[in-house]
C-alpha cells in the first residue's frame, strides 16, 4: 500500500514538470529567434534574449531532472494544465523586461497583470489585447511583435501537441495529452503512432500558415505583416501588428484571403489531412463543416441585410458582415474597422447584428480545429438530442439513435456533450456575475466571459473591436478573464481538474493515513 502511495505521489510532479519543461524549451527557442529579429529595428535584443535564457535554463532543468511515465487521467490534466500555466507565466518575461506595458499611469502590479493577460491571450490563441490608443502596438519593436504573434501560433494548434512530437517515450499517453488539449469532445488519430499523429497535425498547420502568408503578401501586405498575420490567422488567434488590425489596410483582397484562412483554421484539421492524402475535398461531406459554412452564410446575409436597411450600401455591408461573422465565428477576432463607428466596427452596429454576433461568440468553429467556443459539433449533438426527445414523446416505444452525418453518436458522447454544455453555462453565469461585481456593465461582462471562455478575442459593449481590454475592464476583471481564457483553451475540464484532482488525491491519502493509524 505504501509503495503504491509513493508511486502516485512521485509520478505526478515529474510528468507535469517534464512536459512543462519541454514546452518551455520551445518557448525559449522562439524568444531567441525573436531577439535576433529585434536587431532589424536597432532595438535592444536583451529583453528577449534574457527571457530566452531564463526559459531555456528552467525548461532544461525541468526536463533533465524528470522523466515521464505512463499517465493516468489526473496526470494528463495536470501535465497539460501545468504546461499552459508555466508557459503563460514565463511568457510574460519579454514584455516585462522590454517594458512593453510600462506606460504613463501604470504601476508594476498593473504592468504584470497586463503582461500576463497578453501572454495568456497569446498562448490560448484568444486575441484579446490590452494594447490600445494609450499604448499603440506599432510603438514596439518587431521582435516583441513577432514574439506576440508566435505565442498565438504555438498556442493555436497546441503547445502540448508540439511537445508530444519530441516525446516518443510518452507512447499511448501522448494521445491522452493531445485529447486533453485538442478542441472538441474527441480527438482524431491521423497515424498509428501518436508521435506521427502530432507531426501530421503540425505539418498541416505549417503548410496552412505558409499558404496564408504567401496569399497575404501577394495581396499587398508587407513581408513581416504577412508572416505575422499568417501566424495568427492559421491559429485563429487574431493578434495583429497594427492597432487598427486589418482595418489598417482597408483592402478587400486581404480580407478575402483572411476569411478563407480563418475558415480553414476553424475547420477540422483531420479533414485537411484527408484532403491531402486522398487528393479530393471531403469537407462538404462532413455534416459539421456544412453546418459551419451554412451558419456563416446565413448570419452574414442577415447582418448585411440589416446593415443595408440601416443605410449602408449592400456591398460594404456584406463585406463588413462576412468578415466580422467569420472573425468571431472562428474565434479569430480580427477587425476590419477603419476607426470608431466605421462600417466594420460591430460595436457601433444596431443591436440585432450584435445579438447574432453574440451567438457566434458562443458557437465557435469545428472540432479538431484551432478555434475555440462550444463547437458546432456539440451544438449539433445538443439539437439532435433535443429533437430525439421530442420524437420520443410522440412515439414513446421508438428507438431513435442520434445520427451525426451517417454516424451514430454513442450515448456516452451525448452525455459528455450535455455535461460540457452544463459546465459551460455554469461558468458563463459565474463569470458574468464576477465581472459585474467588479464594476463592468452587464453586456460587456457577459460577452467578455463568453469571449474569454471561447478564446474569441473581442467582446461586445465596451470591449468592441476598436477598444482595448485595458479600457473596458479593470485589472482584477482582466485577471478573471485571463483565468477564463486558460480554462476555455483546454475545454474547461483539464484546468478545473488540475486544481481539483490534487485536492482529491490529498483527501484520499489523508483517509488512507487515518485508516492506517486506526488499524
Amino acid at each position, binding site marked *: 500500500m505504501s509503495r503504491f502511495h509513493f508511486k502516485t505521489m512521485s509520478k505526478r510532479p515529474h510528468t507535469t514538470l517534464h512536459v512543462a519543461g519541454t514546452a518551455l524549451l520551445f518557448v525559449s527557442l522562439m524568444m531567441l529567434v525573436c531577439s535576433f529579429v529585434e536587431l532589424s529595428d536597432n532595438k535592444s535584443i536583451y529583453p528577449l534574449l534574457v527571457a530566452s535564457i531564463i526559459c531555456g535554463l528552467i525548461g532544461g532543468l525541468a526536463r533533465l531532472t524528470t522523466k515521464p511515465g505512463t499517465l493516468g487521467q*489526473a496526470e494528463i490534466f495536470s501535465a497539460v494544465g501545468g504546461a499552459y500555466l508555466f508557459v503563460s507565466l514565463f511568457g510574460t518575461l519579454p514584455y516585462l523586461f522590454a517594458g512593453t506595458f510600462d506606460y504613463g499611469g501604470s504601476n508594476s502590479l498593473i504592468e504584470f497583470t497586463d503582461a500576463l493577460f497578453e501572454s495568456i491571450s497569446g498562448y490560448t490563441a484568444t486575441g484579446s489585447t490590452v494594447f490600445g490608443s494609450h499604448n499603440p502596438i506599432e510603438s514596439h519593436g518587431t521582435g516583441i511583435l513577432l514574439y506576440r504573434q508566435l505565442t498565438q501560433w504555438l498556442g493555436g494548434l497546441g503547445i502540448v501537441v508540439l511537445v508530444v512530437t519530441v516525446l516518443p517515450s510518452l507512447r499511448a499517453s501522448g494521445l491522452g495529452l493531445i485529447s486533453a488539449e485538442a478542441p472538441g469532445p474527441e480527438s482524431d488519430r491521423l497515424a498509428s503512432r501518436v508521435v506521427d499523429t502530432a507531426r501530421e497535425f503540425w505539418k498541416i498547420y505549417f503548410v496552412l500558415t505558409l499558404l496564408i502568408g504567401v496569399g497575404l503578401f501577394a495581396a499587398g501586405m508587407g513581408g513581416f505583416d504577412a508572416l505575422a498575420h499568417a501566424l495568427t490567422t492559421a491559429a485563429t488567434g487574431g493578434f495583429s501588428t497594427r492597432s487598427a488590425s486589418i482595418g489598417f489596410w482597408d483592402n478587400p483582397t486581404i480580407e478575402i484571403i483572411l476569411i478563407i484562412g480563418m475558415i480553414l483554421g476553424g475547420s477540422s484539421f483531420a479533414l485537411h489531412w484527408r484532403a491531402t492524402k486522398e487528393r479530393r475535398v471531403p469537407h462538404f461531406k462532413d455534416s459539421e463543416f456544412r453546418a459551419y459554412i451554412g451558419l456563416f452564410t446565413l448570419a452574414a446575409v442577415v447582418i448585411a441585410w440589416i446593415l443595408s436597411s440601416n443605410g449602408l450600401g449592400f456591398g460594404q455591408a456584406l463585406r463588413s458582415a462576412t468578415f466580422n461573422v467569420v472573425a468571431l465565428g472562428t474565434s479569430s477576432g480580427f477587425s476590419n474597422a477603419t476607426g470608431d463607428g466605421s462600417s466594420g466596427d460591430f460595436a457601433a452596429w444596431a443591436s*440585432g447584428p450584435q445579438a*447574432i454576433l453574440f*451567438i457566434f461568440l458562443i458557437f465557435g468553429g469545428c472540432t479538431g480545429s484551432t478555434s475555440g467556443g462550444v463547437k458546432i459539433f456539440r451544438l449539433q449533438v445538443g439539437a439532435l438530442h433535443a429533437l430525439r426527445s421530442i420524437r420520443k414523446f410522440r412515439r414513446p416505444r421508438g428507438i431513435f439513435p442520434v445520427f451525426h452525418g451517417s454516424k451514430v453518436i454513442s450515448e456516452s458522447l451525448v452525455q459528455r456533450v450535455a455535461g460540457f*454544455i*452544463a459546465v459551460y453555462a455554469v461558468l458563463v453565469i459565474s463569470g458574468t456575475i464576477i465581472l459585474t461585481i467588479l464594476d463592468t456593465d452587464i453586456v460587456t461582462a457577459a460577452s467578455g466571459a463568453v469571449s474569454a471562455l471561447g478564446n474569441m478575442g473581442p467582446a461586445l459593449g465596451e470591449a468592441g473591436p476598436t477598444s482595448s481590454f485595458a479600457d473596458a475592464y479593470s485589472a482584477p476583471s482582466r485577471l478573471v478573464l485571463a483565468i477564463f481564457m486558460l480554462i476555455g483553451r483546454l475545454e474547461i*475540464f483539464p484546468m478545473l481538474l488540475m486544481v481539483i484532482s490534487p485536492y482529491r488525491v490529498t483527501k484520499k491519502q489523508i483517509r488512507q493515513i487515518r485508516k492506517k493509524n486506526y488499524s
Partner: protein
Amino acid sequence: MKFAYRSRLQVLTFSGYQQLPDWASWTSGLTLGASFGLLLSGIIAIVSGVAGLHGAASQTPELLIIGTLSGLIGSFLFSIVRPPPKHRTADIFGGFFFLSIFSIVSSAIVFYATDSVEHFDTALYEATVSLTTTALSTLNTSQITPEMQFFRGSLQWAGGLVVLILGAAIIPVVGSKSEPSIQIERNEALALGNTRQSAIFNILKIYIPLSFLLWVAFALTGTGIFDGLLLSISTVSTGGFVPAGNPFEDSATQWIAAAGMCLSGTSFVVLWRLALRKTGELRNSAELRVYFSVVAISALTLFIFSHDFTYENFRSSFFVASSAISTTGFPATITGEWIPIFTVLVLLITAIGGMAGSVSGGFNIRSLIVLIRLSVREMVRQLHPRSVSRIQIDGKPLSESTVDHTVVLQFLFVSVVVVTCIGVSITELDLFSAINAAVHSTATAGPLRSIDGALTEVSVWTRPTRSLLMPAMILGWLAIFPVLIVAGEFVSFLKSKFRSVKRTVIEVRSNE
C-alpha cells in the same frame, strides 16, 4: 381496420366515410384542448361581465355576448368529441397547446371588442400576457374598467391553474410508463394523487383555498374587497397584475404578497404534504432547501449592497427577491441604491424560477440542481471515464432519461431565449433589453428592469417587438415541449400529405 382510426373531422371533410367509432387520439386531444380553451375564456368573460354589473357595467354586454358565444362553440366541440380509451402523451400536450391558442384568440376578441386596445395584434398580446401569467402588459390599470381588470386577472388565475395541472399532474403521470417526467419523478406525482384525476382534484384543493386565504388576508389589510381579490389571484398564479394605485406601499400588504409569492413558487407537492402534515420527507428535500436559500441569499444581497439598512428596504428586498424567483413580477423596487449586479441577480433568479411543480415559470430549481450535479459527475467522469454514477436527489437516484430531459429542457429554454433575443433586437431593442425581454418572456415573469433598476414601459415597444415575444411566452408557459411536439406532429402530417399527393401525381401520370 383503417376506418377505426379515422376521426370524425375526416368524416366531415371527406365523403365516402360514414359511421365511425372513437376519434383518433390526435384529433380528439386537439379538439378537446380547443373546446376547453374556448370554454375557459367564455366562462371567465361571462363571470367578468356579471361582476361588472355591480359597477358602471360599461363593457358587460360585450363580455357576456363574446363569453356566451365562446362557451357555446366550446361546448359544441366538447359534445361532438368521442375520445379514445387512452390519449397518447403527445396528443395530451397537443391538447394543451390548442387550449392556449384558442383561449388566447377568444380572449383577444374580448379585449378588442371592449375597446381596451386599438389593434387586434395588441389584443392578442394582452391575452397572451394574461393567460401565460407574464404580465408584461401595455395597459395602464387605471385606464381599464374593473370588469376588464377582473377578466385579465382571472385569465392569469386560470393560466396558473393550467400550468399546475400540466406540470404537476399531467407530465409526471403520462410520462411514467416508458418516459419519465420532465420535471417531477413519478413517486412525487403520486404524492399528489395516484391517478391524473385525483392529482388535478388535489391541486384544486390547494389552489382555490390558497387564493381565498390570500384574498381574505389582503382584504384585512385594507386593500379593499375587489382590489384584494385582484391581488390574490395575481399572487397565487404568479401573474403580476396589480390594481390601480400602489397597494404595496402598505407594509402588511407587501409582506402578505411576498409570502404568497414564496408559497406560489413552492411545489404544490410540498404544499400538499404540508396540508396532510406529512413533513418528514420535506426536511430532507434538497429542492426546498435550495429554493428558500436562493430567496434568502437574494433578499440579503439586495438589502446589504443597497446600503440602506432600514426596515422598509429589508421588506422591499425580500419582496423583490420573492417576486423575481416566483416569476410574479409585481412592479415594486427596493428603497436603497440599485447597482448593476442587482439587475444580473434579478435576471438570473427570474430565469431559474421557482420549484418544479409550482405555478412559477423559468427553468426551475430542480433542473438547476440536476444540472449542477451533472456538471460534477462529468468532472468525475473525466478522471474516471469508466465510472458508473447516478445523479441523486434526496437520496433517490434519477433515471438517465430524466437527466436527459432536464438537459434538453435547458437547451430548449436557452434556444428560445436566444431566438427571441435575436428577433426583438432586430426589431428595435438594445442588446441588454433584448436579453432581458427574452428571458422574462420565456420565464413568464413580469415587468423588466433597466440597468438602473427602473421598470421598463412595455407600451413604448413597437407592435412587431411585442408580437415576437408572444411565442416565447407560450413556449415558456407550457414548458416548451408541448408546443414542439405539436410542431413535430404538424411537420409529420405535412410530410405524409406531401407524400400522398406525390404518390397520386405519379399514379395519375403512369395511368396517362
